[in-house]
């Protein structure tokens, strides 16, 4: 059986993944037309390229429908419970870096740390009658982080995009989102809490659990590891 390698199907993440493998002697390419999600692998035998959305790669790895996958380390942690028992981090790829952070309005001059956020949340709830709202799409990561740090009296509001705008629109009081330079945050009048770093994410090659792997697949994986130096 071949080893299925899942790679993001479009954009910079796909191109950088192709570059990263190419630099290690493994050529990944889209076959057929540019719009077709079929791929080919040269430079190593027994690997099949599967192009799919980066957000679906954790789930597919966990289900065993792909055996290796490139995706953001944030997505694996968000989408899989006890992620480190389900997939193994094979190689950190050094691109696609982004930090999952908590940000609040710059005008909140009294809030710089999680301790401040917690106290502000308590006062906010007493004043407004509902829990302080944090907009995010990273529910698991944010909830676990805030629980570990003993922040209470907040609620998570789902935001799948334009999260920085939720505060201005008064649908949230704070946000937890991915940022690489912080520029969008600043442009939207927000600042990052000094101890509000939840996870420093980067593109990572993961493999799923190996129970169902045949000896062929294991050999192919070994060969790939030696090429990747991983």
């Amino acid at each position, binding site marked *: 059986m071949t080893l299925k390698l899942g790679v993001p199907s479009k954009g910079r993440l796909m191109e950088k993944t192709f570059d990263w493998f190419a630099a290690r002697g493994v050529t990944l390419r889209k076959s057929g037309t540019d719009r077709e999600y079929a791929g080919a692998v040269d430079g190593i035998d027994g690997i099949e390229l599967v192009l799919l959305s980066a957000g679906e790669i954790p789930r597919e790895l966990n289900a065993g429908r792909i055996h290796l996958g490139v995706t953001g380390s944030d997505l694996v942690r968000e989408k899989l*419970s*006890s992620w480190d028992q389900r997939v193994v981090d094979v190689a950190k790829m050094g691109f696609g870096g982004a930090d999952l952070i908590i940000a609040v*309005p*710059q*005008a*909140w*001059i*009294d809030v*710089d*740390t999680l*301790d*401040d956020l*917690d*106290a*502000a949340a*308590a*006062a*906010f709830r007493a*004043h*407004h009658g*509902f*829990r302080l709202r944090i907009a995010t799409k990273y*529910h*698991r990561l944010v*909830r676990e982080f*805030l*629980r570990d*740090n*003993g922040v*209470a*009296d*907040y*609620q*998570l509001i789902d935001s799948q995009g334009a999260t920085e705008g939720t*505060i*201005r629109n*008064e649908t*949230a*009081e704070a946000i937890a989102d991915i940022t690489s330079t912080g520029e969008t945050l600043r442009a*939207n*009048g*927000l600042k990052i809490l*000094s101890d509000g770093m939840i996870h420093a994410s980067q593109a990572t090659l993961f493999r799923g659990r190996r129970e169902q792997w045949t000896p062929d697949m294991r050999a192919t994986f070994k060969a790939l590891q030696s090429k990747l130096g991983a």
Partner: protein
Amino acid sequence: MTTDRQDTWDRARAYQGVFMQQGAVVTDADYMQQSDLLLDLYGEDIRARAFTTHDPVRGELMLRPDFTVPIVQHHMASGADPARYTYLGKVFRKQDVVETRETEFVQVGFEIFDGSDPAAADAEVFATFASILKDVPVTASTGDIGILRAAVQGLNTTPARRAALMRHLWRPRRFKALLDRYCGLIAAPASRRALLDAADPMAEMPPLLGLRTRAEIAGRIDALRTDAAADPISQIERDLLDALLKVRETAPHALTALRDIAVDLPSISTAVDGLAARLDALAARDVDVDALPFETSYGRTSMEYYDGFVFGFDADPGLNLPAVATGGRYDALTAVLGGGTGVPAVGGVIRPALVADVEGAQ
């Protein structure tokens, strides 16, 4: 482990029979509960524990993670007092961490709403569960969140600090961090010192965004100033609190230890008297109080709405099972759900399938 469903339901009905003999009225709750109330009570963590679903009109709903909230609501709406209830049915919990655990299980409960003699009601609930489990190899644990609450409420410090500590009673890490700061053991972060050193911190405030107002920000800065000017909590009080949290003995010895602490921390005296009255009431119901374990910190991390007596019955830790039965007093919850007017309430639940597992493991 056990998948004999008939056996589970048979046991459940038998246990319910025991509660009915204590005068409990059979009651029920909807499978789907409004999320907003549960979220408001438990916070975001409930979303990690309860299954949520969505109705186009009613919005977010949760498969009942327990019966307590709907039973309390039912009671507060009915106006009956005193009252006692029993219920039987499935509750649903996500098992995000230990995935081998069941996501739905049959639970049988017994709740007493009666303020006439809290010690007697505590003892009756505990003794009833103990009688069901008398031939099952489980170990009882007991505690009393009320003692820690009384100690915190009696601390010689500002009301704001006491309120902050009360709020984090159930989060030991945060509680300790706050206490360390209030005792002057850790300095405030640099950003806070800079804020408080500024003559007029509001002068250069960036444009305001969102619902949190300028007055709220100014109010918090005032609160921080008051806090910075307050005297630290004394090391003596801190040591007493630590000693209190460490009490873990058989009940009579724990009572002696707590009485000793109460000499220097008189704020806990009433709560300790309550423990003594409860032990007497338990002894009157033939509970072997001399061998009963008591731990001040018991239930502190897992039982957020309990505010007085707490108890649990656990299997041998080697079996790696959740508690077979748990319960406690939740006077404050009834006040929250009753719009300010509460009713003293105590109750507990037992999971028949776990009892079968424990018996099967013998």
